[in-house]
Every structure is written in C-alpha cells, then in structure tokens.
C-alpha cells in the first residue's frame, strides 16, 4: 500500500531559501512608494524616506538584544521555585 507523502514544504532547505528571498524582496518593495509619495511628518523627524522601515528594524533589533541581556539575569532553571 502506498503511503501518502506528508506535506513538508517548510522543512526543505530550498523552500527556506525561497522564503528568505521573498522576505527581502517584500521589505525592499515596501520602501519604494516612499520615493513617490510625501508622508506628512508629525514630529519633524518621522517623514523621511523609509522611516517606518528603519524604526521597525532598529526597535526590534534593540528589543531582542535588550531581552537577551536581561535574560542573563532573569532566566532561571525550571525548578527554580521548587527548590
């Protein structure tokens, strides 16, 4: 009896490569409209090209690094409270 093959597209290295390319392309394309439209700056500094892309990138990088840092102190073994 032939067993039905499991759907495992997301596990394949070539699919992951495709997803990476897609992610980069989407991120790049999203900045393109900023060349053609003028965004109203609410606070002076938030109107420049790709502001929200930069904000997203920097703030997430900082959040991850910061959580990694505090994790050094705050992470504990699972039986921490049982001892």
């Amino acid at each position, binding site marked *: 009896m032939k067993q039905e093959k499991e759907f495992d597209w997301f596990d394949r290295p070539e699919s992951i490569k495709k997803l990476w390319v897609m992610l980069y392309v*989407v991120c790049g394309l999203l900045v393109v409209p900023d060349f053609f439209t003028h965004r109203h700056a609410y606070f002076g500094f938030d109107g420049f090209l790709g502001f929200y892309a930069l904000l997203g990138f920097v*703030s997430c*990088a900082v959040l*991850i690094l910061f959580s990694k840092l505090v994790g050094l102190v705050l*992470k504990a073994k*699972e039986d921490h409270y049982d001892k």
Partner: protein
Amino acid sequence: MISDFPPAALLIIGALLVPFFKGNARNWYVILLPAVAFYLISQLQVGSSWQVHFFGFDLTFLRVDKLSKVFGYIFTLNAVAAFVYAFYLKDSTQHMAALIYIGSSLGVVFAGDLVSLYFFWEVMAVASTFLILARKTKKAQAAGMRYIMVHIFGGLCLLAGMVIYITQTGSIAFNAMTDRNLGTYLILIGILVNAAAPPLHAWLPDAYPEATVTGGVILSAYTTKTAVYTLVRGFPGWEILIVVGCIMTIYGIIYALLENDMRRILGYSIINQVGFMVCGVGIGTMMSLNGTVAHAFCHIIYKALLWMSAGSVLYMVGKSKCTDLGGLYKTMPLTLIFGGIGALSISSFPATSGFTSKSLIIDGAVHEHLMWAWLVLEIASAGVFLHAGIKFPYFVFFAKDKGLRPGETNKPMLIAMAFMSFLCIFLGLYPQPLYNVLPYEVHYQAYTFNHVIAQLQLLMLSALVFFLFLKLLKRTETISIDTDWFYRKGGRLFYYIMDKGLNGINRLSDRVFVGGLAGALGRVSRRGPEILALGTLIPLWSVTGITAEKLRDKKAKARAALATGSSPAGITAALATIFLVVVFLLS
C-alpha cells in the same frame, strides 16, 4: 420587563442551573445563555434601573450607556465562542465558574455605583480562581492560591480607596474621578492590579498558563478588560496612565521574548496589549478613548483566538513548551491558519481587526503631540509582531519538527476558531459596525495609502529582524524571574531572615537571660545572705581582735549555717536588723 433585565443576573442565576442539565444538553445550555444575554444587552435602553436601597446606600445594578453596552456586547459574544470551543468539556464545575465569572464581569460593567461594582469585582476574583484550580495539577493549585491572594490584595486597595472616596464625597456614584488624593489613587492601584500593570502584574503570566484549556481562553478576556472598562469610566485623562501604559507595552514584549511556554508568551502579550489601552485612557481624548474601547473589543476576539489555538495544541499534544513543540503545521494546518489570523490581528496587520482599532490610540497620541508616547507605541507595535505575531506560531507550528503527529483538533474547537477568525477579518475590513457602538462618534479612516505602507514597513522589517536574529531567540528550557519572585522566593527569604534574625535573638536571649542572668540571679539569691552576713560580721570579728585561724573557722561555720538555714538566732537577728537598717536608709 425584558427591556431592562440585568444580563449579569441571567448568567449568574443561569450558572446555578447547570448541574440540572446532562450531556450535550448542558453544552447547548451554556452556549445559549450568553447568546440570550447578548440579545438582552442589545435591547437595553440607555438609563439607570434596578435601584436597590441597601444599608443606607442607593445601589444601581443597571446603568446603561454606550460604554457599558459595547463591553456587554463583546463579553457575551466572546462567551458564546468560548463555550462552543468548550463543547468537549464534561465538567459542570468549570462551566458554572465560567458563567459566574462572566456574569459578574457584566455586573461590573453595568454597575452604576462603587458598592455594587466592588461586589461583582470580588465575585469575579473568586469564580475565576476555580478555572485555574480545575486543571487539578499541583502547579495549578499553587498558582491559583497565589492568584487569589494577589486579587485579595488588589480588592483591599480598591475597598480602602472607595471607603475614603465615599466618606469624602458622600456619594457612591461611579463616574469620572477628578480629585487626586489618597482615596482615588488607592482605587486606581486596585484597578491596575486587575489590569496587570507592572509591578502588580505577575499573577497573570503566573496563573493563566496553569489554567485548563478552556479556562485560559475565558480568563484571557474578562479580568483585564473589566479593569480597562473601569479605567475608561473612572480615570480618563490621568496622565500617569500614559506612562503606565507605555511601560506595560514594552514590559510585555521583553518577557514574551524570554519565555518558553506558549501560553505564558500569550499571557505576557496580554500585558503588552492592555498597555496600549491603558495608554489610550491616559491620553483621554474622545479619539483615544474610542481607540481604547475598540482595541479592547478586537483584542478580546483575537486574544481568545490565540488562546484557543494554543489550547488546541495543548489539548492534542499535552505540551505547551516551545522546546517540546514544532512542526505542527503538518498535522494541525487549520489550527495554524486560525492561530495565524489571530497572530496577524494582534500585530495590527492591515486587513485585520488590530489595524482598525489600535490605530485610533496611536493617532490619539499624535493628535495630542505626545511624541514619546507615540514613539513607544510604534516601537511596541513592531515588537508585537516579533513576540506574538511570529514567535508564537513559528516555534509551535514550524521551527524544528519534534515528530509530533497529533492530528487536527475536534470540530467544535475548529468552529469556534473559525468564527473568531471571521470576526478578526470582518472588523479589519469593515470596522463600521464596531465604530457605531463606540462611546463617542468616530470620524476615522484607517485605510490611507500612507498608513498601510507605514504599517507594513514596520511589520515586515520586524519579521526580517526576527529571522536574522533567530539564533539569539533560540528557546531554552528556562523560566523567567518576574515580580512574583518577591512572594514566591521572597516569602522564603523572609522566612530565612526571620529564622536567622528572630531566632538568633531568641538564642541570644536564651544565653543572656536564661543561661546567664537567671543563673546569676539564682546565685545571688542563694549566696546573697551569706555575702551580706559575712561582709558585716568579718569587720566586726576583726575589730574584736581575732586570730586568722579562728576567723577562718568562724567563716566556715557561718557559711554552713546560712547554706542549711540553721544559723544561730543571733546571726539571723543581726541580719534582720541589718536588712531593716538598709530598708530604712533606702526609704
């Protein structure tokens, strides 16, 4: 009569009848109750009714306006979905606890005065505890105990504040509070405990993940959102709440990034999301208050959806740690899709409900020129995608295949998730029905080209960072120390300090007083007369010109006589005289 029947009473009285139903009839019954309550709420006329005179207070059990109605709608709507989800459950206790909990949350929302609000507030705390205890594990028992202790503390703050407030104003009416004094601040602290604002938040990520599968779904909606309602009603425009809200949004993200347990990640993301709402209350304009209410509405839906998908995984696999999960997209694709819609909604992805509700709060900050608040909310929006939007689905459904092949969850669970997913997308594409029931009139268009592009930039770059930093985000089998440490470990530290401190003092006093002073006192009382007598006699004897040998002999005799109490009458009389002289001289 039907036009003003309190929906809280329907659910609470209805809960008491649950044990009379058996099998599927019981499940249908608990779905029907909140559905009828939803209808009742839609029929309520604006105004106050069900006024009862009680111990000198005029209580108002049913105060109906747009604000209480919109919370009533979402509380009952969510309850219907949650009970559909819980169709598999054969546990009357949980159903009763859930109905009383939801009913009393409606009681809070429709309470027109502080006294009846407080009453329902406390019933909520007690009823919700049973949804945690019902898991019947040792961990759940302990977490449930801590949960109720924290809520008793919060309730006491609230009560103390109310007593001061009522004494000062002479009124129990619950409206926007303008005076800032001890009373109102205590009320605020009591509410912020339930809103899970740091450092009073640890009960939430401690207890919710220990609740039952359906308990988690139900708990995620009511306690924090009744607190949000109470803040909107009582504390609009209190600037401190902008700060509290901003801290909550970032705090939730940091801890959610550290967490390994999927339901604990979702717990921390509640704190993050409620932060947006609290911030909106602090800004206090009509737009931001609308935003807070709209966001609470949408949040209840997508957060319940996220807890439902996590619950399905827990139900099927029996595991909830990211390190034990992964690769579930192969066997639970529908749960993944529904959970994914919840994840996109919480991240305010365009075309989902988060986008049409959260934008109101952020634009509220822009309109008030609150640059820092706006910046923190934008950063937090990017961070939401990181921890709840991607981290949760990625580590549970993708990441490393752990060889788990559970298969899809049961039909009622899928139906409930499909319904909630539909609402997320419907309100994302067509928010007008929601905008219509908000407390103030809305003139807002979320879908402008620039807004959509800005949001997509923010989110997609957030996604890029997630995958670029994936190595740093690798899950570890750890827990994160939070402020509950102070009453979990701190309690033991307290015990240790008390043990070493107070018992040390005990030991010291034992040595000084029992071993030292008491002995010394004993010696003094035993040898006192002897010393006194000899001290008087020796100079006397010496004066009479006695040899050293005779003196020694006399001393030994006198000592022996005093020790045995057989001293000659002369000596006794002499001692008594000396004693009297001493007493006379001293007096």
